[in-house]
């Protein structure tokens, strides 16, 4: 049992021990849940049902573009799942999101560690710096990456100078690398902040104690700090991976026709061909795939013990 869980037990025992007015206790939890339930109901369940109904529609024969009728045509799912043109973008989405998540973890963890333990009185300043990008629209920030990575931009110029590219044609934008960099950049705060929150709660005395017990330096980190920060790592990776998989803005702005993610195909089906059923089916397929991946991940890491 982890320490957090143990603490939870202690707290629960305390609560049960104290005399509580029973009746009020009955209603309070429901009242507290009400806003959240209403929110989920109106903005998650209802749209989800609408989307599902839409995924079963078919085109009105001889009708206008974007005109569909409800026929409960479950074969829409078969059509999409058997269309190989969707496999590559779907596969790409998961690969790009996984790469971005790993990169964000590699950057975010040391950053969070630094802020939590080494930043001293500048801690708040650094935290604000992590959040600061949110003050500017993320579309704008992503477009700024175009300039940074453009053929005649600073990064390519520096790399050419260092001999990575020949002087001929070659660059980073648009490319898969640019898309992954964009995803990493855009989701980095979502990785850093939960990890910081976990690290910040780690009692330095535990690390000291580890040192006293002959686990200095890295061993102490590996045996004490890292396990205690795992809830933050799990939360951070999920908060990065899930939205990154469904993201289409980075691929639209930093990629080209060879870097499209499934979100771009959904976007195209919705907005360009007005093929709402196909777009809805794709959305459900994506949801199912993400759910499967996340379930496997959470199972393997064993979050119940951590969160």
């Amino acid at each position, binding site marked *: 049992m982890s320490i957090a869980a143990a603490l939870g037990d202690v707290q629960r025992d305390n609560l049960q021990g104290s005399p509580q007015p029973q009746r009020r206790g009955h209603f309070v939890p429901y009242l507290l849940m009400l806003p959240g339930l209403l929110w989920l109901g109106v903005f998650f369940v209802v749209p989800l049902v609408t989307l599902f109904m839409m995924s079963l529609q078919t085109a009105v024969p001889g009708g*206008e*573009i974007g005109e569909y009728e409800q026929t409960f045509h479950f074969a829409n799912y078969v059509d999409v799942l058997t269309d190989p043109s969707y496999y590559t973008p779907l596969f790409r989405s998961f690969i790009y999101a996984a790469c971005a998540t790993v990169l964000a973890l590699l950057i975010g963890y040391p950053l969070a560690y630094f802020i939590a333990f080494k930043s001293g009185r500048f801690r708040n300043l650094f935290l604000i710096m992590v959040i600061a990008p949110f003050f500017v*629209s993320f579309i704008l920030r992503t477009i700024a990456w175009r300039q940074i990575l453009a053929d005649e931009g600073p990064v390519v110029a520096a790399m050419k100078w260092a001999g990575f590219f020949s002087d001929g044609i070659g660059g980073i934008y648009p490319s898969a690398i640019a898309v992954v960099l964009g995803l990493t950049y855009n989701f980095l705060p979502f990785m850093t902040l939960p990890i910081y929150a976990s690290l910040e709660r780690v009692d330095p005395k535990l690390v000291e104690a580890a040192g006293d017990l002959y686990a200095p330096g890295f061993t102490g980190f590996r045996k004490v700090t890292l396990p205690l920060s795992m809830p933050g790592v799990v939360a951070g990776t999920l908060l990065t991976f899930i939205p990154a998989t469904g993201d289409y803005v980075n691929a639209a702005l930093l990629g080209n026709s060879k870097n499209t993610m499934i979100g771009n195909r959904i976007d195209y089906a919705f907005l360009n061909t007005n093929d709402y059923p196909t777009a809805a089916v794709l959305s459900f397929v994506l949801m199912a795939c993400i759910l499967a991946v996340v379930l496997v991940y959470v199972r393997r890491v064993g979050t119940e013990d951590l969160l």
Partner: protein
Amino acid sequence: MDPMNDPRLEMLRQAMSRRGFLGATGAVGAAAALAACGTGSKGGSSSSSGSAAASSGNAAPVATPSDKSDSDKSLVWANWTLYLDYDEEKKVYPSLVAFEEKTGIKVEYKEDIEDNATFYGKVSGQLGNGQDIGYDLVTPTDWMAGRWIRQGFAAPIDEANVPNKANILDTLNNVGFDPGRKYSLTWQSGFSGLVWNKEKLPNGLKSVNDLWAPELKGKVVVLSEMRDTIGLIMMSQGVRIDGPFTNDQFNAALAVLQQQVDSGQIKQVKGNSYKEDLINGQAYAAIGWSGDIFQINAENGDKWGFALPDTDGVLWSDNLLIPATSTHKKNAEELMNYYYQPEVAAIVAAYVNYICPVKGAKEAMAKIDPKLAASEFIFPTDATLAKTQVFRPLTPKEEQEYSEAFGKVIQG
């Protein structure tokens, strides 16, 4: 993908044109906004009621809202980028300012159209439900204007408010999608053709196949407007796009596009924001629109050339249209009327360098700039027009199939 924002970041400006930038952000932002509100599109519950009625001809299924024009002197106009005379110094649209001063109508001018299909996708759901889309004037291309009219999404023009409507060129007055111009007025017409960077390609481009030269690998950008890009390729294969071409002929052109995208010859397929790639050196050659090239030359130094390919260019028009849900119809009509004065049309044409649809503008132009009055791109002669073709109307079924197939190529 159009999306939002109106920042003027000096830093970014140097690398890209102001409006190319806004166009790009606009597209993605709008798509993002739409994605955020989920399924607010026509395919939902409304499909059986509102929009089904829409298919039954021109009868307006969309309830006409009351016109607030007299009490609320304002209107919102959605247009493409680089499509109205602009004063770089003062950051205003002079002809629009003159209109505002003359009529007291405040115009909110938004460069919100990145490409036709995306813009339609963004507003069609609300139009189908009879909800205000926030625009009182929109500027879709012919085929898309036809779709708006067919679906009852356009409000009929009250001729009493637009007497200058009579100034439209005879050739544009009786178009197939709107005989007699009951719903629409041409804003500008233009050519789709070949664009190149004159420093990098001193010899220029003459035919579509020149875009596939090995030395241009990864330096070509083409338009995400299917009719322009596929149209040019089809004509390069000897197919007439204004005639009854077959699916096989369409697919043969699509295969060329697929091959050039796969090989990396074409780096990007873009809407209005293709200009940005030309300006910042991402692309040396493009399939682009005639007037744009004059404008980016004016703003960024005379660096680019434009030509109709030897196998003909695409001729298109964009049209002013009042959405059926507009609550400022009369104001919009007043604006249409204003821009159909030959003198005003000449001012716009002198800036945008697109084909001017207004009779008498050539004479008015001669007074402003005699050189421009002789421009083949603003007042083309019959010989120039003979080197262009108009993409034939597609049935909804063809439209769906072709755009889906096109999407699979450009969205790999």
